[in-house]
């Protein structure tokens, strides 16, 4: 029968093609199943369903192929789970190991024994023949290759198809089994890698937790016993972690503290929410400390709290510093208030007796003129001078204390105008003085206007005073550059001073001239210096005896004091 020989030859060729295709699909399990289905369908014809045995002995459809995609779609129902009655043919084949050939299927007779949807699908594609062979590897059935015939024009399935399919099944079974093993290997490799990764992550976490400078602890949700403690925690409590693990708060802390801690723990676990305690005292082996603590619930995959994570920062030092700062501030405020009331009473009470001394001396001079000789009157004049000088000293000291204490109100100030005002009031007191004053116009600065006025009053007052014995007295204010900064110079051609004593100029009660030469309290320049320093500026002086002095000052050039 040349037809059969031809069929066999063709079949063998297709078989060898199929085997090559299987090996090409390699160890990719799903690719392989598809290749098997496709090749079987090509070799034997019509539809191929690869049925596989699951570890629990269920049978499932592993792959399906038909060159008509519509048929594949119609049979998709087979992939909805384990095969039922429709898998009977396959199951029987697998158990007996015998191929089953059904050249002609009577669908109507089959109807009662299979699910209606399956029957419907089979009817839809008009199945009229079927063939199933077992795939066995090392004597064990791993599945079944089944072929459905539905095309009318093809001849019925016969024994040659059956033999061919068995050959294919033998090869496919081996390939599928190998691919499955490889797949399992791959899977267990992935699990091992995942486990290793988890271990690595855990080790990483351990190191992180161990070295966090805050106390980190974990309690189990049931008993609130410590299950974990880091180094900072050991150091804070002064207890090694071996002594802590497995114990709870009541084993270490005073009852009231332990109750508070656990109440917060319960709150955290019950509400499944972070609880923050801004300040809590804790008794440790090293005395009482203060903590800022966060408590976090750790939930399992069902949302049940299993652990409580606590992170506590030791804020004792900060708290202590805060308290000390507050105390220092209170003290400073109190001192400042005291100083204020002190100056207030100095301003009022110290002057009254001086008025008495001066006034009654004058009364003596006036009312008892006939009983006093010249010497007696001179003494009384000296008493009055002293009283008045004392009054001046008090005023200057109060001024000095005021410029030290009062708040700085910086704004843009017309320095030239302030200087002109100073000079005008000096001229008003001594109208007969003839001094040439030059003030550079429009000098604008950032300063406290009242304080700057006091500084200028003093500087111009000095220049005015020390030029009192100079012919053609001159005083000038101008902007200059000193050490790269904008500075202001007040220059006079008066008595000047010896540079050797320049460092004494700005000290309180320091004077370079005798009272009889030039009167003064020795507080004016100290006041100037204080004002300029409060403006973050510098004041310096240059002078030559008999040739005048120059005072330089800057504003806002120095770092904050």
């Amino acid at each position, binding site marked *: 029968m040349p037809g059969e020989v031809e069929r066999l030859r063709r079949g063998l060729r297709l078989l060898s093609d199929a085997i090559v295709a299987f090996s090409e699909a390699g160890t990719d399990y799903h690719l392989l199943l598809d290749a098997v289905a496709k090749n079987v369908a090509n070799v034997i014809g019509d539809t191929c369903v690869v049925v596989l045995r699951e570890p629990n002995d269920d049978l499932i459809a592993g792959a399906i192929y038909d060159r008509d995609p519509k048929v594949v779609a119609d049979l998709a129902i087979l992939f909805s789970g384990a095969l039922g009655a429709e898998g009977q043919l396959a199951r029987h084949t697998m158990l007996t190991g015998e191929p089953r050939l059904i050249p002609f299927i009577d669908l109507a007779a089959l109807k009662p024994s299979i699910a209606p949807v399956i029957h419907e699908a089979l009817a839809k594609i008009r199945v009229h023949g079927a063939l199933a062979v077992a795939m066995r590897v090392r004597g064990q059935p791993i599945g079944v290759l089944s072929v459905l015939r539905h095309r009318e024009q093809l001849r019925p399935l016969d024994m040659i198809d059956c033999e061919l399919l068995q050959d294919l099944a033998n090869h496919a079974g081996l390939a599928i089994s190998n691919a499955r093993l490889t797949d399992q290997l791959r899977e267990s490799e992935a699990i091992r890698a995942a486990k290793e990764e988890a271990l690595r992550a855990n080790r990483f976490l351990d190191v992180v937790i161990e070295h966090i400078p805050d106390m980190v602890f974990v309690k189990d949700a049931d008993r609130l016993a410590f299950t974990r403690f880091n180094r900072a925690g050991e150091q804070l409590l002064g207890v090694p972690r071996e002594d802590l693990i497995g114990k709870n708060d009541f084993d270490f802390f005073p009852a009231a503290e332990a109750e508070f801690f656990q109440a917060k723990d319960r709150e955290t676990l019950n509400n499944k929410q972070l609880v923050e305690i801004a300040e809590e005292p804790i008794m440790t082996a090293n005395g009482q400390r203060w903590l800022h603590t966060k408590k976090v619930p750790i939930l399992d995959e069902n949302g049940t709290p299993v652990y409580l994570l606590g992170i506590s920062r030791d804020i004792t030092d900060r708290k202590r510093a805060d308290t000390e700062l507050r105390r220092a501030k209170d003290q400073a405020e109190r001192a400042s208030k005291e100083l204020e009331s002190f100056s207030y009473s100095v301003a009022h009470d110290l002057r009254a007796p001086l*008025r008495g001394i001066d006034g009654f*001396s004058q*009364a003596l001079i006036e009312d008892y003129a006939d009983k006093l000789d010249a010497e007696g009157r001179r003494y009384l004049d000296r008493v009055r001078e002293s009283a008045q000088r004392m009054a001046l000293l008090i005023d200057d000291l109060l001024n000095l204390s005021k410029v030290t204490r009062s708040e700085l109100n910086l704004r843009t100030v017309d320095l030239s105008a302030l200087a002109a005002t100073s000079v005008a009031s000096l001229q008003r007191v001594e109208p007969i003085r003839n001094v040439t004053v030059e003030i550079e116009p429009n000098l604008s600065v950032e300063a406290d206007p009242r304080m700057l006025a006091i500084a200028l009053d003093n500087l111009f007052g000095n220049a005015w005073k020390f030029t009192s014995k100079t012919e053609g007295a001159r005083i000038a204010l101008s902007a200059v550059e000193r050490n790269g900064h904008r500075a202001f110079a007040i220059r006079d051609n008066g008595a000047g001073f010896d540079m050797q004593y320049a460092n004494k100029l700005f000290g309180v009660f320091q004077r370079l001239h005798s009272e009889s030469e030039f009167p003064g309290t020795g507080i004016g320049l100290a006041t100037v210096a204080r004002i300029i320093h409060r403006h973050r500026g510098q004041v310096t002086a240059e002078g030559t005896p008999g040739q005048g002095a120059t005072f330089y000052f800057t504003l806002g050039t120095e770092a904050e004091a």
Partner: protein
Amino acid sequence: MSERVILLVEDNPSDEELTLRALKKSNILNRVVVVRDGAEALAYLFARGVHASRAADEIPQVILLDLKLPKIDGLEVLREIRADDRTKLLPVVVLTSSIQEQDVVTSYGLGANSYVRKPVDFTQFVEAVRQLGLYWLVINQPLPT
């Protein structure tokens, strides 16, 4: 016509005597009523307590008010003077030792008509009192009574 007196509120006896002397030297001849603390000042102004029997029509033409006073201080006295209809328009000259800024500001804030610092130099003190007397008793036109 009612008598135009000067009310001097002063606790320091030296200052009191010097002020009276300065007034006299300035030829100010108005009678000077001296009260020595804030409480007495208010008692006089509202004719109560020790001053309950003073002449009802006796109205100070000017009040010379010290600030630092026993019992009730000058600023409080000023506050009460300005708060009462009977006295709120009386000229008040703060005459005190200090020119502490807070005192000056508060005094004007409470309605002082003038703020004068007592100079230590008696010559200047006399001059200040003379000018004060001249202004408030002669030049200034008082409120009609």
